[in-house]
């Protein structure tokens, strides 16, 4: 157990000790931390609620194959301890050491992709993540990557052109060359659990499911965070002091996705973007909904567990999951129970979950042959908007179980 966190910034491993850091707490956002440094003023606050993307940074984290996966996230919605074991990449890191602009930066200059420039660092970071994940992305993929970045000046066309022009080099750049070095740093960071305790706050980041469940038993009033895109607003907008937090981001058991003969089982802390990559074929209505769910930056951290945990009407997945007859698995030291979603939610942000229980996974049964589930979202703006109305239709023509196992295929 440790009380400090380690992450990579500017190519170096950093250790943050919250006890000795003035002005920083365990619920400080990555945005505020970066802006407190004289060398990282590129990241901008546009709204402090994840709706504008000006604070976008990229997190590098180890995937299963010793490769680094790059994800754009809103730094205003990420608490500092969530950086543990990750690489924090900011706009200042994109130039090469000899001062050459990254291809996405050069294309933005050449295409007149910036005007006032205030949204630009965030757009550059979203485009950088796109660059690292796609070579020659389609227009749809570009739009998807940029829909979480508001620009009030350009009308976006030159930004799209810059993405089309620059994301064409097989994802290779100086980060590719430096990857083995960073992977080495990742491996030197211990995976043990983190308990940060100050006079005012307790921030617990368990490293296993067992530990998480026993912590929840000990601290039933603790706020569970599983992505924290909703909880962070209590800090950034309401300036609330969150006294007890259990952060599930390091619990690997909750990040698993399993397919069985009859259902898809999704760990509570699988990100929405990861969920989306599994479901297009078997759960198209959920897939469609996730396409218009917030923005890519938010989908990279938001989770199904979080959506169900808050039970906020803003959570776009809940009606779709109900239509699919999904079930929630709740676990505590007293055991495990399975409950259908319509019985789980009892009102506005109210559920039957007991204080000592954790949501561990969501089971989505295979759709019966002949049944059709369709989803519609009506919102003022297509992307990154709260639903006004959602409509879910389930039609069943005949009941007949299919025998094929859900085969996990990621896009």
């Amino acid at each position, binding site marked *: 157990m440790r009380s400090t966190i380690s992450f990579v910034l500017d190519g170096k491993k950093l250790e943050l000790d919250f006890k000795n850091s003035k002005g920083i707490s365990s619920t400080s956002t990555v945005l505020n931390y970066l802006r407190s440094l004289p060398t990282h003023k590129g990241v*901008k606050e546009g709204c402090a609620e994840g709706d504008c993307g000006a604070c976008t940074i990229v997190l590098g984290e180890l995937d299963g194959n010793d490769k680094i996966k790059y994800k754009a996230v809103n730094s205003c919605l990420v608490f500092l301890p969530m950086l543990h074991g990750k690489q924090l990449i900011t706009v200042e890191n994109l130039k090469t050491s000899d001062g050459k602009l990254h291809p996405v930066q050069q294309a933005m200059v050449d295409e007149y992709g910036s005007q*006032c420039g205030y949204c630009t660092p965030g757009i550059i970071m979203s485009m950088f993540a796109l660059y690292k994940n796609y070579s020659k992305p389609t227009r749809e993929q570009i739009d998807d990557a940029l829909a979480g970045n508001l620009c009030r000046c350009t009308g976006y066309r030159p*930004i799209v052109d810059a993405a089309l022009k620059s994301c064409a080099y097989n994802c290779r750049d100086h980060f590719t060359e430096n990857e083995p070095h960073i992977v080495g740093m990742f491996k030197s960071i211990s995976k043990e659990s983190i308990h940060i305790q100050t006079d005012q706050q307790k921030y617990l980041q368990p490293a296993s499911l067992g530990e998480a469940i026993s912590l929840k038993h000990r601290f039933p009033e603790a706020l569970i965070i599983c992505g924290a895109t909703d909880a962070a607003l209590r800090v950034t907008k309401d300036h609330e002091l969150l006294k007890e937090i259990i952060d599930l981001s390091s619990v690997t058991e909750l990040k698993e996705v399993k397919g069985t003969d009859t259902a898809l089982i999704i760990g509570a802390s699988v990100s929405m973007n990861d969920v989306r990559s599994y479901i297009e074929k078997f759960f198209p209505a959920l897939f469609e909904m996730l396409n218009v769910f917030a923005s890519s930056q938010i989908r990279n951290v938001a989770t199904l567990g979080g959506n169900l945990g808050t039970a906020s009407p803003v959570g776009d997945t809940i009606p779709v999951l109900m239509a699919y007859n999904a079930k929630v698995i709740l676990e505590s030291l007293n055991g495990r129970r399975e409950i259908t979603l319509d019985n789980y939610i009892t009102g506005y942000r109210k559920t039957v979950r007991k204080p000592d229980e954790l949501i561990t996974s969501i089971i989505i049964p295979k759709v019966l042959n002949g049944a059709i589930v369709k989803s519609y979202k009506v919102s003022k703006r297509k992307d990154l908007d709260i639903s006004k109305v959602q409509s879910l239709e389930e039609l069943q023509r005949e009941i007949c179980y299919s025998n094929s196992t859900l085969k996990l295929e990621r896009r």
Partner: protein
Amino acid sequence: MNTILPHDSAVGHVTGEAVYIDDILVNNQLLIGKVVYSPHAHARIKSFDLSEVRKIPGVHAVMCYKDIPGHNQMGPVVNDEPVLAENEVTFVGQAVFLVAAETEEQCREAENLIKIEYEPLDAILDIKTAIAKSNLMGPPRKIERGSVGVALKSSKHVISGELKTGAQEHWYLETQASLCVPGEGNEINVFSSTQHPSETQALVAEVLGIKRNEVVVEVKRIGGGFGGKETQANHVACWAALLCNATKRPVKIRLFRDDDMIMTGKRHRFLTKYEVGFNDDGILQAVEFELNSDGGAATDLSFAILERAMLHTDNAYYVPNFFVEGRVWKTNLPSNTAMRGFGGPQGMVAIETVIDRIARYLKKDPTEIRRKNFYGIESRNTTHYEEVVENNRLHMIYEQIVKSSEYEKRRKEIDEFNKKNEFYKKGLALTPVKFGISFTTTFLNQAGALVNVYMDGTVLVNHGGTEMGQGLNTKIQQIAAVEFGINPDRVKVNATNTSKVPNTSATAASSGSDLNGMAVKNAIDTIKERILKELAAIWSPQQSTNPSISTEGGSQPDGWLAGASGGHQSILFKDSFIFDSDHPDRKISFTDAMKEMNLRQVSLSATGFYKTPTIGWDKNKGRGKPFFYYSFGMAVSEVLIDVLTGQHTLLRTDILQDVGDSINPGIDMGQVEGGFIQGVGWCTTEEIKWDTQGNLMTHSPDTYKIPTVQDIPKDFRVKLMESVPNLVGTIRRSKAIGEPPFMLSLSVWLAIKDAISAVGNHENEPEFSLPATNEVILMAIEKLKPSRSLRP
């Protein structure tokens, strides 16, 4: 020598190195300023007590109106805006107290300890209530030509109606911000995100009770302005200056997004009534408009905005009998202010609605009605305020865009599509823009510059305009490089600073490069004249004739400027040399020449000045020539609407815009596309709502929706007209471009209306307003098909 540059801050933008107010590194004496504002739309302040607040460690100042050393006044035109409320608050978000503390947490703690007692009073929160209560901001204004009453009576057809247009939040990405640093004695340095540094300077001086020569305002760049920082950036600067003055420490105020949206004014809402007379062909005979504008709680620029709206109710159309009357109503909302178009959009949308209605009434294509009513070239070419529409490019643009957009063909395809589809309908619309260029307050059409040339051959240009992303500094850099005949990398444009160029106008009204570009050229001409005189003495000491300057590719002096040169033009500034084209041996590098000039005691620094010629406007008579020239453009947009949900998709937009000879096509394209999309936001998803207590309900981006990348046309074809120099003498024959494209977005609004209208087979007039949110669209559709109503 390529002088067309990328944006001069582009590398800074993409690397994060570009510095905005909040990024300026300040020493550890910096205090954070916070504005404590009214929670009431209208209330009397009964009492307040700040004593507890002063005890909090880390709090260095708490101020109320009594602590203001100078005038408690920051209205830009009329003195009706207190810096801090005295006995009464008149809108939610009005500043009452100021706090300076070492951290934001201490500021919040201080705010919570302030004791204040309000007695709520009745509030006026919309135009209709203001009208009912006769709560006028000032006297009505009118412009009249011909005899509308008679003409309406003799018109074959007359229709009338009412149109509501919504407010719009600027949503600059950088919220309002200012950093003040104390100097010696009264001196104060103000770093502000302001479009009007000279006014910021004046107001800071008045509020502090000091002289203007003791205040320096500097603007490096603005993270988006759009008019929102023309007057209202002054407020934040005044508040920060008060706290700085009180503590004698640097103080920074950066408004939190929600506070910025709650506290600052928006584009004016309008309620417009109209009556129009026309003949069987749809030719306009007479039109009468009554414009009602929601001014908010104070005057700000409301009357200038109303005036521009009134001057644009004709848009591109000749109407022989014209009457427009405008009123600004006072409400208990933040004072509404300048925003891109400055009333132009609210004026144009009125006549565009009229034309659209006439077409439906006569069962004709609106595009045909538009074309028939365009201003003529030789006749039918005077506006309702009797300015002649010169160099009219409407017909030229119309012919090109109807062809390039395949308007006729697509109109037929859309009619076919609509016949076949019940749940989806398509709509198409072409709309023109004729936008008048110049501040209508004529004296504001002036600019200054200060150009320094250094002995290494580099140039530092200061001008009165501010860089807010529009690329003004890039254009200025190009202008200076061409005029001096040197590479642009030797020209740097300085941060705008009131101690370098004084008494400037706001960077507004699309005028930035027209005015400042000319002032810079004027300064450079002065320096070149001095160099020329000296070189003439060196190269031909016995000759008495005065050779004059010339720059290949640069602007030749026009008309009123001709007196500055004339004569033969053998000495050129070109390719980083100065040489006599008649005597090839007479040649010197630009850098060597500058060293030589210094040795010969020639000043290499000069101021420049420009005022727009030939304009003049009598506000009271509603007659004159308010505009130096007009900017023209047209757009054709096609949309798809979902009849069951009211959602719309923008399928395609074609734009053709007249920018004269573009100084920088990349930058001008950015203004056209960006302005258009900002307009699309106003026309569709950007909806401002207040509750019944005057609280802004849409106070953050989770409820206020500006366009994202997915909201732009799926097929977006934008072109600048080529080989169309401005025929009046502007810098490099260019035209202003900041605002005109905004109003091209009316094509989207009317395409949506066209699609709605298709639900009822274009038989009936849909009920429509702006913005066309999905609710507005769905309600309009439901009213067109009563038999199919979803409601029981």
